[in-house]
């Protein structure tokens, strides 16, 4: 066979492959070629703005198809092909309800909130950190995610929570936080020792009726929405929308919130921290004077 015929064969094969590829890509839209994405309204114009980076939904669409569609689905409703195997279930973007926000409960998150969530991932879930994508790509994804719900066109994100400076970490602060843990009935879900074994733990469901587990402080070294004290403060002042974790912004004052933060850190026995050290010293000396947390300590934990 001459080189010319080699080339003819190759060209013929390539054209056939190309034609078949294009045909099949169109035909199997419900399998792995998310054609519904192509019809998403306003996809070309939606943008995001994160610290000087402008994300473009049109670029984000291609990234979504590559990285996200398996879980979040071609329709953005969290019903990707893997959804049935995943616990907790992937986020349904059509509801525009997000756990990790810096905005009040019930409001839309900021672009930065979504960007941080993509960057950080969600510990103990199937959502990994997408830090390997560059900042522009993550901003593009934020822009595209906002095309799934009409809420983004009608509403603005809520006002960002103002987090006051952290109060000093003292044993008094921790003890007051312990009282709040009892009083606000955090133990009912998270358990008296933070082991996620409170009496209500087994009954919890998310906003879609799927079973959901409370955070286990004793094994986790990171929280769903960050790992710093400020992140922890933000979590219970904004709540985790879509989950049973409510916002306590209208219930406790900022100083009380910091006290609660300090106590919650003492439950993280697997993570060395200043609060835990202080608490262990105190317990060694006064442990027998402490009332156990739980239903028998309704009048206060101390």
């Amino acid at each position, binding site marked *: *066979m001459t080189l010319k015929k*080699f080339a003819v064969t*190759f060209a013929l*094969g390539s054209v056939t*492959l190309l034609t078949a590829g294009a045909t099949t890509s169109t035909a199997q839209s419900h399998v792995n070629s998310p054609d519904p994405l192509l019809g998403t309204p306003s996809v070309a114009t939606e943008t995001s703005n994160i610290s000087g980076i402008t994300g473009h939904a049109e670029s984000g669409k291609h990234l979504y198809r590559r990285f996200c569609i398996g879980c979040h689905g071609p329709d953005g409703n969290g019903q990707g092909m893997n959804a049935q195997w995943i616990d907790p279930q992937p986020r349904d973007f059509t509801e525009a309800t997000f756990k990790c926000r810096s905005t009040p409960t019930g409001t839309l998150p900021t672009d930065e909130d979504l960007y941080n969530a993509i960057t950080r991932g969600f510990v103990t879930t199937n959502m990994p950190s997408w830090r390997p994508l560059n900042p*522009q790509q993550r901003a593009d994804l934020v822009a595209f995610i906002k095309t799934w719900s009409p809420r983004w066109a009608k509403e603005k994100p809520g006002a960002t929570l103002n987090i006051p400076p952290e109060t000093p970490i003292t044993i008094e602060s921790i003890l007051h936080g312990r009282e709040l843990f009892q009083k606000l009935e955090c133990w009912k879900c998270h358990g008296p020792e933070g082991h996620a074994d409170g009496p209500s733990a087994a009954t919890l469901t998310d906003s879609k009726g799927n079973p959901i587990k409370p955070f286990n402080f004793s094994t986790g070294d990171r929280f769903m929405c960050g790992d710093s004290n400020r992140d922890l403060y933000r979590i219970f002042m904004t709540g985790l929308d879509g989950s049973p974790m409510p916002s306590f912004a209208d219930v406790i004052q900022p100083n009380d919130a910091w006290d609660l933060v300090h106590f919650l850190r003492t439950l993280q026995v697997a993570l060395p921290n200043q609060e835990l050290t202080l608490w262990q010293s105190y317990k060694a000396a006064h442990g027998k004077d402490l009332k156990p947390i739980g239903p028998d300590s309704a009048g206060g934990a101390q």
Partner: protein
Amino acid sequence: MSEKIRECANPMNPKWSRWKTILTCAFLLIAIAVCDVPRASALPRGKVMAIPAFARKYGLPCSACHTAWPELNNFGQVFRDNGYQLMNDRDSPIWQNPSYFPISFRITPSWHRESTTNQQFDTGNGTLTQAGFDLSGMDLWSAGTIYKNISFVLLPSSDPTAVWHFESAFIRFDNLKGSPWLNLRFGRFELDNLISEKRFLFLSNNGGIYQIYHFNVPGSINNFGYGDNQIGVELAGHSANSYTRYSVSVLSSNEGGVNFTTDVVPGAPPSNRTYDVNLAFSQAFNAPGAPGESGFGQERIGAFAYIGQRPTNYLTEGGTQLVGINNKPFYRIGFAGDLSYKNLELMPLFMYGHDNPYLGQFGVPGGSTLPAGAQAPTFYGGFLEAHYYFNPQNVALGRFEQINVGQQALNTTPGSLGNITAVTFGYRWYPIMFSRGGVALDGEFSRVRTIGVEPESGDGSGTVADPTAAVWSNSIYFGIDFDF
């Protein structure tokens, strides 16, 4: 069946017409495409049960970790660098369903045609052409985590005749002292190549190797190939997003051989007792785009150096070789890039190789007198590879390679002997790219010119008819690459 029909039905028969080959090939492709469309379309969403190991474990689609599998994108690189962990506190196998089993299979049934000119036969000289249906070797991949921050790979691999060896087998201690900059790997593994030959997109005989990764100057007794897995220990590290990466490896000087030999299958010569070192470093950065656009993508550049030794003689007993001695050094240095411009990916690589003069002289032990005109064999060259991603399921491929001998082992040898020029084009279409399995149709054409020596692919009769002339070796390849 009449004799005539039998003859014409055999593609290896000289009476099989060239046009029948072309038409058969086209027919097969059309048949595959036509049959595949309704089959693929009928697959229900979320009910596909083909399960590659990592996709099954994490539920991510192939495209999350691969630009086009098996090539890794940066997310896949970070996953690999983290010891096959997503670092979401669910990586340890204790979190997996007990039925989870971390094994994947990969094999490629194919049709291919190989043709090599300037070959010597018992009946005279000419072109050796072979064609027909075939199988690739098979990989039986097992990889994952043994415990949090302890990962492993075990990759028994066979050739098409089911002769098995351990292509990779290592354990890796990840994130030592809680730092991604300290990871220790122990066993047999691929060198930390910026451009991996183990995870690339070409499958044909001639196009399915990076020529420079296996090149040695003609006559050299050095068996080193930069693309071959080596055995030893590697300290590696990376930044959180793997934009910065380094590795330092200390390896046995035996081309990854096992059982104190220089190969992974029985019958190889014994190894020596020295060690080689490989160093690799790369840095990625983001190239900004025009105002209002989303940038070009990630650009990565890197450099590498391999310093090794090979024996020039053997300690023997009764004529049996026992261990390699009189070792002489060699090195390979180079740089590479993985550059993106939106959907276009360009991968340049340059390498320079230098061997001790004794390694260029077969049968002359180190320390004895070299023949007149003996000199250090050197070579230089590389390749430029291009991928264009129409979408995650369709990618067009091209590669140009050039290797020149800088200095022959003997100064009387023609300077161009061994030079290689190669060009390869291909197209891969992934009709099935689920989170739990993958199929790719692969079409390639590769054309390699070597001066006076057999092609690196091994195609040909084994003897060049005219060592002063070029050998042209062509591959046409259509394969169905599947991963389960």
